[in-house]
Structures are given as structure tokens and as C-alpha cells.
């Protein structure tokens, strides 16, 4: 618990990065997210927890407009990042996603080399001036993804040949290569073994130095380990949002308490 108090101090210092107001999401006729209001802070790990199907992943995908790729999905309400409405008609989701990176549940390296996997983002966004620059970006991203030492000798090997944990760290490196400001992680450890999970969690904690990290997780222990803020979702509602320590030790809402103590979920 000592540890947690230190984290709390950090949180206070950071400004609001993402502000969501009255967000409603519909999948066809299903009302998946009901009136969610939340402020997510910069340089903080925010965890979304809740039972399956509670809408936490859906809400996460609203933050970089990944839901746009699903035809039947409609989003209402306001989400502002750095004060800009990301659902403004003038906003190009492509530009948005460069700013809000995402890591997925299952490691999904492209069937290309490790180098090309990481270089893909910078290439499409035109971040590198030349080859040397691109090499730099790739190396920096791989270092930040805490996988550089493992792959530096085989950058041209296919990314799909790595182990599950390495693949996921490669995907994180791929996401940070475009130099996002927010990193969304959708259950990044659910497909990994405990050792790989520990490595990724350590990485997430480091990433907090530079990014606002939002992580969806099934595991309450993981949320407690990596996050400073926690939001509990239930049946499409944001039930409770606050300091991770508070949520886990002294929740206000009985539903949160039931979930934390294992009675629902």
C-alpha cells in the first residue's frame, strides 16, 4: 500500500488529457454505452475494469474512433482530447489515431519483418526524413517497447515468429513508434503467460512517463498493480471512477464492491 500512496501524489500533478461527456454508444439497436462522463489524466495509467460485455472495450475504442470501422456502431456525446472534440466533423480519424495509439488484446504483428512492423506507422505518417532517421525511430520505439535487446540482431526476421509476449511488446513498440500522446490498451495481457504479463506490466509503468495510458483489463490485480486511476463499468454504465487505491479498498458503490469482492462478474 505504500507504493500506492506514492502513485497518488503523481496523479495530482497531471492535467486532464481526455474529457468525455455524455457518451452514448449504440450497436444497431443495442445501447452499449450509457451516458459516460470521465476525465482521463495525462501521464497516468487509467484502468477500465468490469465484467465481460460491460462496455469497457467499446468505450476505449471510442477514444481513437476505432468504432468508425464498424458499420452498425453509432457514438453520441462529446469526447475531447487536449480540448479538441475528436468527433468533430473536421477531424480526420487517421490523424487522431496517430495521436492516440492502440494495442490490442491478441498480439497482432503484421506478417512482415520486425523492422517493417515498427516502421509501418512512421512511414505512413511521414515521420522520418530519411532511412537513418527511420532506423533511429525504429530503434527508439523498440527500446521503449523494452524489446530492443531481444530483437536487435534479427530486425529482418518476421514479426510473427516471436513469442507471444515478445509479439505484444513488438505491438506496443509499433504503437509508440508513431509518437502518440495517448496509448490505449485493450486487455494487452489476456493472451500472455504470467512471465510475459509481468514484462508488459513493467513496460506499461515505464510508458506512464511519457504517455497517458488507458488500459482495459479483466484482472483486478493487474489494475491494482499498474494503474493510478480506475474506472468500473457495469452494463454500459460508468459506475465508479477514482483513485485506484480508493476503488479497491473503499468503493462507494455497492456494485463496485460486489465486483471487487467477486460477487458479480
Amino acid at each position, binding site marked *: 500500500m505504500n507504493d500506492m500512496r506514492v502513485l497518488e501524489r503523481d496523479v495530482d500533478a497531471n492535467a486532464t488529457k481526455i474529457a468525455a461527456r455524455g457518451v452514448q454508444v449504440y450497436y444497431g439497436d443495442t445501447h452499449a454505452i450509457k451516458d459516460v462522463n470521465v476525465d482521463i489524466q495525462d501521464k497516468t495509467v487509467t484502468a477500465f475494469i468490469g465484467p465481460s460485455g460491460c462496455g469497457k472495450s467499446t468505450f476505449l475504442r471510442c477514444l481513437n474512433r476505432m468504432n468508425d470501422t464498424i458499420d452498425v456502431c453509432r457514438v453520441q456525446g462529446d469526447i475531447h482530447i487536449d480540448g*479538441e*472534440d475528436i468527433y*468533430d466533423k*473536421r*477531424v480526420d480519424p*487517421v490523424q487522431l489515431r496517430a495521436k492516440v495509439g492502440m494495442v490490442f488484446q491478441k498480439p497482432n504483428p503484421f506478417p512482415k519483418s520486425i523492422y517493417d512492423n515498427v516502421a509501418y506507422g512512421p512511414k505512413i*505518417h511521414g515521420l522520418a526524413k530519411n532511412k537513418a532517421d527511420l532506423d533511429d525511430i525504429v530503434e527508439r520505439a523498440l527500446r521503449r517497447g523494452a524489446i530492443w535487446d531481444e530483437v536487435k540482431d534479427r530486425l529482418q526476421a518476421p514479426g510473427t515468429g516471436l513469442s507471444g509476449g515478445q509479439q505484444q511488446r513488438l505491438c506496443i513498440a509499433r504503437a509508440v513508434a508513431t509518437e502518440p*500522446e495517448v496509448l490505449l490498451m485493450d486487455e494487452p495481457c489476456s493472451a500472455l503467460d504470467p512471465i510475459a504479463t509481468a514484462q508488459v506490466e513493467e513496460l506499461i509503468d515505464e510508458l506512464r512517463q511519457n504517455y497517458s495510458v488507458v488500459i482495459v483489463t479483466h484482472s483486478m490485480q493487474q489494475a491494482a498493480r499498474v494503474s493510478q486511476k480506475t474506472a468500473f463499468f457495469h452494463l454500459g454504465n460508468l459506475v465508479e471512477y477514482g483513485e485506484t487505491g480508493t476503488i479497491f479498498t473503499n468503493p462507494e458503490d455497492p456494485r463496485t464492491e460486489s465486483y471487487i469482492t467477486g460477487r458479480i462478474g
Partner: protein
Amino acid sequence: MTDASMPTSSDAKPRTPLTTVDARTKKRKAAEARFRMYGIAGIATGIFFLIVLLASIVASGTGAFQQTFINVPVYLDPAKLDKNGNRNPAELAKVSTFGYTPLIQEALLTQVQNNGIETPLEKRGDMKAMISASAAAQVRDVVLGDPDMIGETVEFRILASSRVDGYLKDRVKREDVARDKNIDAEHLDLVDALVPLGIVQKTFNIDFITGADASESRAEAAGIGVSMIGSFFMMLVVLVLALPIGVAASIYLEEFAPKNRLTDLIEVNIANLAAVPSIVFGILGLAVFIQFMHLPQSAPLVGGMVLTLMTLPTIIISTRASLKAVPPSIRDAALGVGASKMQSVFHHVLPLAAPGILTGTIIGLAQALGETAPLLLIGMVGFIASNAPDSIASGLLDPNSAMPAQIYEWAKRADPAFYERAWGGIIILLLFLITMNTIAVILRRRFERRW
């Protein structure tokens, strides 16, 4: 580590606000729009080709369903047709079509003169170019059917020649007739004069649908009816052979086959046979059925057997898919009440898969109906000029043609009048295919089960 020790470039580089689209994104958006257009262009081109194809079929083929006839009262002169005057059928039959031709020409000439049409064509023989060569046979058949007509003047509706027909259908142009030895401008003038009188008349042509093929010089008399019967016989053979064999093979492979070399071999064979060019099946038919087994050429039975071998893979593949779609729980339920494996398959699985099997079979039949190449090799292009009833009686072993083979025959002939027939034949063929596919779609919709 502190924030200061590891500055990110995102801090260093000022971002453009999200609401303003930067130049690079604009370029990427344009590339995106272009790429999307390629896709739309691809589909549009495909659909454009489809429309052009269907339009040219309809535009060129509908003419075949219309035919030009000449309505004339023909005096059946006893002096020519029945010299002995005893109406003896045997003697009447000895008068060939050459005996009738002058009577018809005379009749038309009389009509022309009676109606006061001015034309330089004053001789009986001048009428030859107007009348189909098959008109005489048509009149003769009627007379032989009822000899008492002889001596009377009977109203006939005889076929006009192919050129007259083509003139009324805009196929034969005035500027081209100078080079045409079969007709000239005077005849066309005469046609123009006869049309308002109702003597030359273009009407619906049932004979095209029911009739038999005609020789090279009589495009106007050719019909697709007999080859339709040939196709029908072949489809019958395909249905009778391919459905049971296909279903039995599928049941074995899907339900009983152990995992062994033989099963693998069969599977590989089926997969490969599905991709063997149809002409190879024609070679097989020629070598095995005709050369080796000495079955008759041009017989619907042989054609049907070749098409059976060709459609079997299609039927087996679709039947297996519908057997696979029946959930294992049904089999388990049957086995659970003590049915044998065979009983569970025949009593429960097969009936549930039947609609799917039927759909696959119909689609296989449709494929077989349109197939041409193997039929050419086994000679399914028998020239059958006799009319429908005779050949219905003759059945599976007598020479016949098939619709697509008949269309091919017409397409090969020199006279463009046959092209119209070929297109018309295609319309009929496509109507059959559309009907079959519609039935298949309806069956699938109706009985489709989601497990």
C-alpha cells in the same frame, strides 16, 4: 527516471490541431479516394460487361421469335397434284415438293396482280426469292394429310424467304442487296407494297421454339425445339445417374469413410476432376463410350453420361456441404435410441440435408445444360430436320442435338440469318438456366435451416 530525463519527440514537435487537416493527411485522403474509385470502377466495369452482354443477347435474339409469313390462297391444282384423280395417297406422295412450288409461286403472283401492285416482276419464277424453300414441303404435308383439299383454293400461311424476313427485321439493308444474288431491290419494293395489305406479315414464330433445325439455305425454317428435346433427354440421364451416384458417394465420404489412403485418393480425385477442362471429359466420352464401348455417336445417352461424369464433382461437393451442415447432435440422438449408423444417416441426416442436395443438383444440372465442348466431341450435333413428335419417340439412343450444340452449329454457318437464331437460342437457353437457378434459390431460402 523523471519526465525531464526522457523527453519525447511528441513534446518537441508541435502538433497541428486535430480539426485542421494537414497537407500530408490531405494527400493520403486523396490517395484513399482514388483507391476507392478503383474498386468502384472494377465493379462498375464488371456490371457494365454484364449489361452489354445481356443487352446484345436481347437485342440480337428477340428477332428469332418473330418470323415473316406470306398469307396466300393457293389453288391446289388437281392437274398437277393428282393426275389420275383418284386421291390415292400412295400416288399423291409421289408428287415431290417440285410439284407444289409452282402452285405457290403462282398464288403469290396472282395476289400481287390482283392487288394492282406495279412491279417489274411479272413472271411466276420471279416470286421464288420471296418464298421460303420449305414452303412447298409445308403445303405438301397439309395436302397429304387431307387429300380432299385438292381442287380447292386453300388459304395458307407460308414462310417468307430468309431475305424478306431479314429486310423486315432490318438485317438486310437496301444498300447491300446489289451484291446479294438471292434478292434484289425490286423484290424489296414488292415486300414494301405487300406489307400494308397484310399479305406479308411479321408475327410471333412458335416454330422457332418447337421446330427442328433446317439446312444451310433455309435459315427461316430453323428451330430449336428438337435440340431442346435432346437436351431434355440428356438432363434426364444426368439426373438419373448423377443424383444417386453423387448422393451415395457423398454419404460414404462424409459419414462412413475411414481416414485411409483410399479415402484420400477419392477426395483428391474429386477435387481435381472439378477443375479438369470440360473438353477432356469429351475426349473421355469419345474414347471410352464410343471407341471402346461402341455406343452410338450423337446419342443423348452418351451425352448424358459424359455430362454426368462432369457434374458429379459439383454435386458431390455441394451434397457433402449440406450433409456437413446437419449437426452431429442429430446423429447422436438417432444412435442414442439404438438406430444403426446406416439408419441414422438414411432416416435423419439425409432428409434434413435433402433441400441442400436438391439445390446443388439443380445447379449442377444447370451447369450441364449449358455445356457445349464435350458434346461436340461425341458428335451431339446430329442434324435432325424432322419435327418434334418423331424424335420424341426415338429416345435415348438415336442421334440428336442439344441446345448449346445447336447454337454452336448456327453460329458456324455462313448465312448471318442463322446468327439471329443462335442469339434466340441463347435466350431460350438462358431462360431455362434462370428458371433452374431461381428454383434452386427459392429452395434454399425456403428450407434453409440455421442450426
